[in-house]
């Protein structure tokens, strides 16, 4: 019994230490974004020589949004002879195929790929598309995205830097005002991109390639073995694969693109669970390679490891809460004695928990949003909601690791209804 109590106490201290580390991390990023010189992305470069680009859009039953993304891309100011658009019809059962064929017939830049055999899911679809793609650079959009006219140019210009293996843009929800969930997701996106990603880019740490509104060098990916179809978070996997081999991910805060945020809690739960599962799959895979990599600096390794473990945090915290409840009812809560403990506890409760809120609030400030910042306390609901589904994803990732089973890709449901457009 004494041994169990000691384990519980040690775990409690471990939880506190981990929470403090992540809290400090949030503060560092926020302060960097607020007060330090911002690292410039090279979007201002004008160059008459451009890369050949293949824009790839995985689609599974996307009749509701397919036309929107294609129309937006066909308006792109990227030179026509250097742009190829490959919408991937991935086992669709609706009118996606029909829509893609209509656009292919009307514009020579559109080369649809219809898939009805092999593995379903984004990584498998991307692998097949890359065999067809003629571009040196692959840029990926999800089907619900609405890229601006100059977005392809902004993203592809980043590859002029010889060390950049992937470029990531900023995602902005198009349906912010729909309901409370979309409003909260808008806040999360702001914090994640405007502060977190930009600060990591400023500090030369590990900005993450997010799998959409971003691109990568085709040769680089093909040479390192394409996407692994067993990994649900192919974007995180690519990020770490690149960094561990001496490449960089560049973050382009000004390369903004609208996306559709989930409008129902069920859909969001499924999405966040999938992210957790995929991200944790990457954690098993890359924890040791990050530590061993000769290309990464100490700070890059630290940031890389903290980022790898980010979807483990809610699990650690959930277990920490259970742990503290057990200790409390066993009357074993007196872990650190003395008044100084009260000060630490008070300080953490006041400022430590505040760190992510501070980060999101700062992002709202930088974006010039003055009223939506009042919604910040409601993020607490998301926090507990996510805690449950991220924990589920974490245990699914453990099962994936043990059983070597193949994960099934689950598409995020769309809510937008487009009217059929003319090509």
């Amino acid at each position: 019994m004494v041994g169990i109590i000691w384990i519980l106490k040690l775990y409690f201290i471990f939880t506190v230490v981990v929470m403090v580390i992540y809290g400090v991390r949030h503060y560092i990023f926020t302060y960097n974004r607020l007060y330090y010189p911002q690292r410039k992305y090279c979007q201002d470069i004008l160059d008459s020589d451009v890369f050949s680009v293949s824009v790839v859009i995985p689609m599974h039953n996307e009749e509701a949004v397919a036309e929107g993304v294609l129309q937006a891309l066909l308006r792109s100011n990227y030179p026509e002879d250097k742009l190829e658009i490959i919408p991937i019809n991935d086992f669709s059962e609706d009118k996606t195929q029909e829509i893609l064929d209509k656009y292919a017939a009307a514009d020579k830049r559109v080369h649809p790929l219809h898939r009805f055999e092999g593995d379903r899911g984004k990584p498998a679809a991307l692998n097949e598309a890359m065999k067809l793609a003629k571009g040196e650079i692959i840029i990926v959009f999800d089907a619900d995205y609405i890229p601006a006219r100059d977005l392809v140019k902004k993203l592809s210009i980043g590859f002029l830097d010889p060390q950049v293996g992937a470029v990531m843009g900023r995602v902005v929800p198009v349906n912010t005002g729909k309901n409370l969930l979309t409003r909260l997701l808008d806040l999360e996106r702001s914090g994640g991109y405007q502060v977190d990603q930009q600060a990591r880019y400023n500090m030369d740490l590990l900005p993450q390639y997010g799998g959409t509104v971003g691109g990568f060098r085709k040769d680089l990916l093909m040479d390192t073995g394409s996407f692994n179809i067993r990994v649900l978070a192919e974007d995180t996997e690519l990020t770490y694969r690149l960094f561990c081999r001496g490449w960089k991910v560049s973050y382009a805060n000004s390369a903004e693109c609208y996306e559709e945020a989930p409008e129902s809690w069920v859909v969001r739960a499924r999405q966040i669970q999938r992210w957790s599962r995929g991200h944790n799959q990457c954690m098993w895979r890359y924890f040791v390679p990050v530590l061993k990599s000769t290309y990464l600096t100490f700070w890059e390794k630290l940031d890389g490891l903290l980022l790898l473990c980010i979807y483990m945090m809610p699990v650690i915290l959930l277990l920490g809460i259970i742990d503290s409840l057990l200790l409390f009812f066993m009357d074993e809560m007196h872990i650190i004695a003395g008044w100084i403990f009260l000060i630490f506890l008070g300080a953490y409760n006041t400022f430590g928990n505040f760190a992510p809120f501070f980060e999101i609030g700062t992002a709202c400030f930088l974006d010039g949003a003055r009223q939506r910042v009042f919604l910040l306390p409601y993020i607490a609901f998301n926090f507990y909601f996510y805690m449950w589904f991220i924990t589920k994803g974490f245990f699914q990732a453990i099962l994936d690791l043990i059983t070597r089973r193949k994960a099934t890709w689950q598409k995020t449901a769309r809510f937008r209804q487009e009217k059929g457009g003319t090509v």
Partner: protein
Amino acid sequence: MLIICLALFIVMLSFAFLPGWIEIKRKKDDKSMHINNNYVRDPEYFAKSFKKLLLKRVKDLNAIEDGQELELSQGEIINCPSQSIEPVSGSYKHITLFKRPVNIMPHSQFFKEVVCLKQAQIGQGTLLRAGLCNEDCSLADQVHVVRWLDAKKIVTGENCNLGVSTTAKEMLLLGRGCRFTRLYAPVIEVGTGGTEEVQAKSLPFLKPAYNAFLEDSEAIEKGKLYEVNIVKRHGDLVVEAGAVVTGSIKGYGKITIANQATVLGNVFGEKDIIIEAGAKIWGDVFANGIVEMGPGSSIGQSGKCKSLVTRDGIKLHQNSRIYGYVSTDGEGVVL
């Protein structure tokens, strides 16, 4: 007692959520962050949009009469002060249109845009809010452009301030002491001109097979050929005199491209980049620091558009040349 405590708890809790609840109900800030999906970067944006605005109201600028009012972004009076090539001077509060070649006297002041349909010579110390010139434009010393200037060919005197953006369709020749933020022209040159032209050559597209990582003490050695991309993660990087790099260069410390060295690709630096006398970079140069271009150095190739973009500033020495675009978030200066 329990009920009072419970009520107090709920009241206290509601203080945190109440402003958010009010925002949810009133929806004052529920719109998505604005993204201009039609935006396309154009270095000549100012001149083009102003010209478009004018041509929306009158098809032929020659047909505008002195004192005519046009509805641009707001009601604007157009002055046509001189119909001859006589020098003009004075202070102008309205948009000014010169239909014939014009010689503007020193220390004139134009608080609105100036449009010149023929050649223009701007006198010393003139203040120009913005200028659009269909033909060549020469600026005497100490001309101050507040916003933008666009012409076919621009030659500046010394110590001019070139405002936010100065663009030329053929050539931009900069005098000593000029300050600038953004420049765009097929050829941008400092001094009297005469720097050897860098001809675009039809070489096969250069794609070095891999990135070579240089150790701390390593340099690109004098006179040698490097057919790779060069990445230096720590410390300063020197491309020694006469060396040729066919790929691109990336450095995290100060980068120096020494005398007569050539880089056929791009140069990306996280700190300052020094391009010494006679060094040539065929690609783009980008720095999160300052870039200093030595005498006779060049960026880009004739007939192509390449860029020099920096965060902290640009220093151009005499006879340096750029083919394309120059931009800095800091200050650009001709030494």
